[in-house]
């Protein structure tokens, strides 16, 4: 999968940016504040229909502009022009080869990108919700049934919470909602379990390549559904649900903990170990798309030399050189350093100054 053209209009700090691409590796360099990360974000936006770095779409529209647009030409089993328009006060629009998609969700599952960025540290230190949404994002792109169940599940839990907050709690209504939650939650849980089984050896493999250490990597997937059915869980949590007026059973309560040598990474991991783990996790994500969808996603490396540290960036260069990656976009402040990286990967490259 490759991008051959990229146009940004009023997207974040870019009034009108056009990049023509004919290389495997694109190095984007410029001073801080020039909008290097925004270019990577635009590519991610085109792939999955939302920003990697900004919480809302509105934040991606330039100040005083009414709308922002991104156009990309993809080569992925054919040529695809993907156009994304963000307008204030309106729903975002995605067009594929001139045809508007009815929903943004319909866009998922064709174009893939994996971002490695300094903010990924949140995956370690942030709340469980961050890790859940990371794996949901992966599974939603590769499995439409997962996405459908997830959307439905979230709405059903919202409805269930509304019943628990009402003055009169109708148990038959709770049951009617649980009847629908049961198949969804079973599917979501089993797919999350399968994903971790798939990911753990891959994370370990990449971690070993990136780090000189011999630590054993693990992921603890703690879910009530590991040992009990949804029915059993709701029965156990019935009083708690009534007292707290919200649903305490289901995959929205799943906990995901990253582990190193049997201990919590966020508590006991060194800064170096955490950085290596994060890159390994993202490369495992990359490999997951390769194996499940038979595509080579776009790899977007944001500021890895500055924030992630040179030693690990060089180790990553080795991984990239030896493994068979698709197109890579990398941002950095220094032209010399980025050029050295591009050369070291032994792939065709181009440099873009911002």
């Amino acid at each position, binding site marked *: 999968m490759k991008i051959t053209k990229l146009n940004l209009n009023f997207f974040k700090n870019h009034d009108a940016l056009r990049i023509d691409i004919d290389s495997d590796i694109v190095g984007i360099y410029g001073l801080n504040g020039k909008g290097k990360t925004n270019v990577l974000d635009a590519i991610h936006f085109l792939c999955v229909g939302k920003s990697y770095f900004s919480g809302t779409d509105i934040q991606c529209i330039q100040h005083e502009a009414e709308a922002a647009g991104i156009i990309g030409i993809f080569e992925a089993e054919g040529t695809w022009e993907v156009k994304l328009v963000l307008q204030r006060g309106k729903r975002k629009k995605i067009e594929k080869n001139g045809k508007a998609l009815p929903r943004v969700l319909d866009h998922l599952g064709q174009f893939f990108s994996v971002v490695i960025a300094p903010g990924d540290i949140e995956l370690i230190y942030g709340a469980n919700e961050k890790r859940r949404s990371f794996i949901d994002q992966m599974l939603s792109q590769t499995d*439409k049934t997962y996405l*459908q169940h997830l959307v439905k599940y979230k709405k059903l839990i*919202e*409805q269930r919470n*509304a019943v628990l907050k009402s003055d009169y709690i109708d148990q*038959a*209504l709770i*049951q*009617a909602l649980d009847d*629908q939650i049961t198949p969804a939650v079973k599917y979501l849980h089993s797919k999350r379990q399968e994903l971790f089984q798939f990911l753990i050896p891959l994370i370990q493999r990449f971690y070993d390549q990136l780090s000189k250490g011999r630590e054993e990597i693990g992921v603890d997937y703690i879910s009530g559904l590991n040992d009990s059915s949804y029915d059993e869980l709701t029965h156990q949590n019935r009083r708690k649900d009534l007292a707290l007026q919200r649903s305490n059973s289901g995959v929205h309560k799943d906990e995901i903990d990253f582990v190193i040598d049997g201990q919590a990474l966020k508590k006991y991991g060194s800064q170096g170990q955490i950085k290596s783990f994060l890159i390994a996790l993202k490369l495992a994500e990359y490999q997951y798309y390769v194996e499940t969808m038979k595509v080579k996603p776009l790899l977007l490396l944001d500021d890895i030399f500055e924030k992630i540290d040179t030693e690990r960036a060089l180790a990553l260069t080795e991984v990239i050189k030896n493994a068979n990656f698709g197109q890579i976009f990398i941002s950095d402040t220094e032209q010399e350093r980025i050029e050295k990286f591009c050369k070291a990967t032994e792939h065709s490259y181009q440099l873009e100054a911002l």
Partner: protein
Amino acid sequence: MVLNLLKRPEGETLELARALERMRLDIRFCEQCFNLSDDHLCSVCKSPSRDEHTICIVKDFQDVIAIENTAQYNGQYHVLGGLISPVEGIGPQDIKIPQLIDRIKEKEVNEIILALSSTMEGDTTEFYIARKVTEMGVKVSTLSKGISVGGELEYTDEISLARSIKNRIEMKD
């Protein structure tokens, strides 16, 4: 519209005004099924040829018209007037579910057919009614869902297609 009415013969306009007045004053809801009616019972509930032991549950009176147009159904109806949506503050008591339960208790109902939309609110309402009514020993069925007649397979959404495959039927002579 006003200019058009003024151009027409006076008698015609006055007749329309009287018809509108009658519609506003006479049309009400059927006391049994909550369909539109010009009497305390609607024409379906009053008809001796309709099967009163089978009730089709719908959301609106428009759904009654749609099903009547098929000329394939000979039972009675029950119009809920909405669907359960706790997030919007609509519970079972806010639509005509208690009246449905009373109706089943009072009349000899053998089967109810759930004909609600295939949305989450529609499904929740169906599951709720099914639970309540099954406890009362009444058979519950729901409309079959899947590919529409004349629909192209490649344009059918995945959920409908999956349901059609799951609920496939044997071809017989």
